[in-house]
């Protein structure tokens, strides 16, 4: 399904020329078939990122962050999921139209992933070494390597992620490692072959704060060193602030706001972003704001118009009927909310 380019699309933050986008999602719709109906989870997602960028995707549980990420790699279970419309361009080619063979190439050479739960991401019956080797073997550089070279290339990333005794690490099973070490192994796997895009889905969420801090600092350092582009998916605003240049805020299957990180934290515009920021308890004290009333809508019967409208303190008549498109506030800030219809520049 190719929909005509909508207005929401035209307004996208475009630093370098449009065609230079590394990843571009246009009007993505994903549905899940469940008992009793269809969940319309993604409802027209638009997203662009350029080479070398570090982009954050923030949203709360169930807003469709992970569904978006899985659609990019085509690892959504289809069925029950169905990509009902839209395009996902990775380096100018539509992932949704690719054959299995090309997809495999994207996964082995183009995009790597760090999942939220390292325990589930690693295969328990293979050693760390075997799993890393597989990554190296199927990468671009790995095609004609000798066994010795492959071994060296599996050790290198383990050293980079500061795991103690990498040689011994190759022969351990994931079960023998702690959560923080497993996540380090996952990062090592993501780094074992050169990639253009690294997608990290809540890389520290299942870990303790001190460990999360170490993992994020490690990720940050490696990203700086290798110049890889990063899409960081998280529900923690603080993490986004420390790690990214630009942020997309997602709510109930749609992007509601996008801005440079600093700008978003200084000047959140969408009522949802606003509510979210207010709700974060501050280290400086001052109590906790009341948060956002209500909860994420039922995807089987999503509300008419703006999906945030039932919870929005500033909802207007028009919000019940129409879906807001992105309004450009300035070059690095756009918001999908009718409140800013007239302040567009």
């Amino acid at each position, binding site marked *: 399904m190719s929909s005509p380019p909508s207005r929401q699309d035209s307004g996208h933050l475009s630093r370098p020329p449009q065609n230079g986008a590394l990843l571009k999602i246009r009007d993505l719709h994903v549905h899940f078939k469940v008992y009793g109906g269809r969940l319309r989870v993604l409802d027209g997602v638009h997203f662009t990122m350029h080479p070398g960028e570090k982009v954050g995707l923030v949203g*709360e*549980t169930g807003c469709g962050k992970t569904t978006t990420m899985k659609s990019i790699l085509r690892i959504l279970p289809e069925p029950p999921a169905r990509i009902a419309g839209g395009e996902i361009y990775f380096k100018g080619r539509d992932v949704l139209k690719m054959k299995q063979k090309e997809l495999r190439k994207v996964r082995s050479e183009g995009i790597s992933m760090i999942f939220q739960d390292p325990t589930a991401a690693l295969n328990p019956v293979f050693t760390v070494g075997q799993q890393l080797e597989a990554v190296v073997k199927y990468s671009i550089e790995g095609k004609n390597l000798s066994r010795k070279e492959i071994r060296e290339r599996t050790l290198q990333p383990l050293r980079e992620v500061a795991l103690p005794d990498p040689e011994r690490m190759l022969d351990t099973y994931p079960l023998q490692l*702690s959560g*923080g*070490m497993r996540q380090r192994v996952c990062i090592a796997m993501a780094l074992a072959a050169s990639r253009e895009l690294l997608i990290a889905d809540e890389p520290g969420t299942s870990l*303790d*704060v*001190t*460990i*999360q*801090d*170490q993992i*994020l*600092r490690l990720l940050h350092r490696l990203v700086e060193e290798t110049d890889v582009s990063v899409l960081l998916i998280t*529900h*923690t*605003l*603080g*993490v986004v*602030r*420390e790690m990214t240049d630009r942020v997309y805020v997602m709510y109930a299957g749609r992007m509601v706001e996008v801005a440079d990180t600093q700008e978003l*934290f200084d000047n959140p515009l969408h009522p949802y972003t606003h*509510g*979210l*920021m*207010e*709700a*974060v*308890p*501050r*280290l*400086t*004290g*001052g*109590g*906790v*704001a*009341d*948060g*956002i*009333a209500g*909860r*994420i809508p039922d995807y089987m019967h999503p509300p008419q118009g703006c999906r945030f409208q039932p919870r929005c303190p500033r909802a207007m008549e028009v919000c019940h009927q129409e879906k807001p498109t992105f309004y450009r506030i300035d070059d690095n800030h756009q918001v999908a909310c009718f409140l800013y219809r007239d302040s567009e520049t």
Partner: protein
Amino acid sequence: MNQADILTVRDLKKHFVIGHKDVLRREPITVKAVDGISFTVKEGETFGLVGESGSGKSTTAYTVVAMYRPTAGSISFRGENLFEGKNERTRALKKEIQIVFQDPGSSLNPRRNVKQILELPLRIHRREENRTEQIARLMDMVELPLEHMHKYPQALGGGEKQAVAIARALATDPSFIILDEPTSALDVSVQAKIINILIGLQDEFNLSYLFITHDLSLMRNVASRVAIMYLGKICEVAETAEFFRNPYHPYTEMLLSSIPVVSEEEEQVKPKRIRSTGEIPSPVNVPPGCSFHLRCPVRQPGCAEEDPVMTEIEEGHWVRCHLQC
């Protein structure tokens, strides 16, 4: 602070035997989940217990509600020792101390609707007159709309489920509630609402809370005093404002500096000196001496040998570290 103490914990230890080193079962392998902690909770205050996973926070909570019997030490509630003599706690005491668990998805029976869930404690504690009215009142206290009364937990959102769990804890009219990570399974926008309900209830009924969490930013906003736990021991206790202004223990500094924050002002509060390194060791093999010394950036030669003792460095501010003595 002149309020009376409501809960006093003295040298509490809870060890679990998880196996044996030899077949003859002569040498047990024990996990020292809680290893000699002392604290008091005052009437009407929120006492915060912070720590990473495996630090023994939840074991402490479960021991206070008598889900476990302590290995050593005492817990007294309004001066009455909870584990003296008889094995069974009196119903009157059970009524006073209630607990709210972390994950409402698994602490609420999926086969019972909200009304049935809230009825059970009323029945057990024989407060059956005007049951429906009482349930309506409880739901009102946690700001749950009455139309949810006949719904089952799965039909409710995470925040609403936690509100039911809080209402259930309130059903017996307790004076002391243990909140074991009550919001860590929830999104921030929902967390805020639950926290404000809890604060409101505390003001209204003069409740005392033992608030357990790993989130220091949250603690800053709800607790009147904070204790930090590490490997079964408390390493620092202070009043909240003092605690954040003047953290002493290197572990406290490490925790504070690890928090991802959302504003520049908060960045200023975070200690710069210490970056986190290492991981919390397994509680089966607690390092000798100070249990934190392996990760400590400012450790001294003596730290590996001698376990420091709790020392009051300023009024109400206690630290367990050799450097402060």
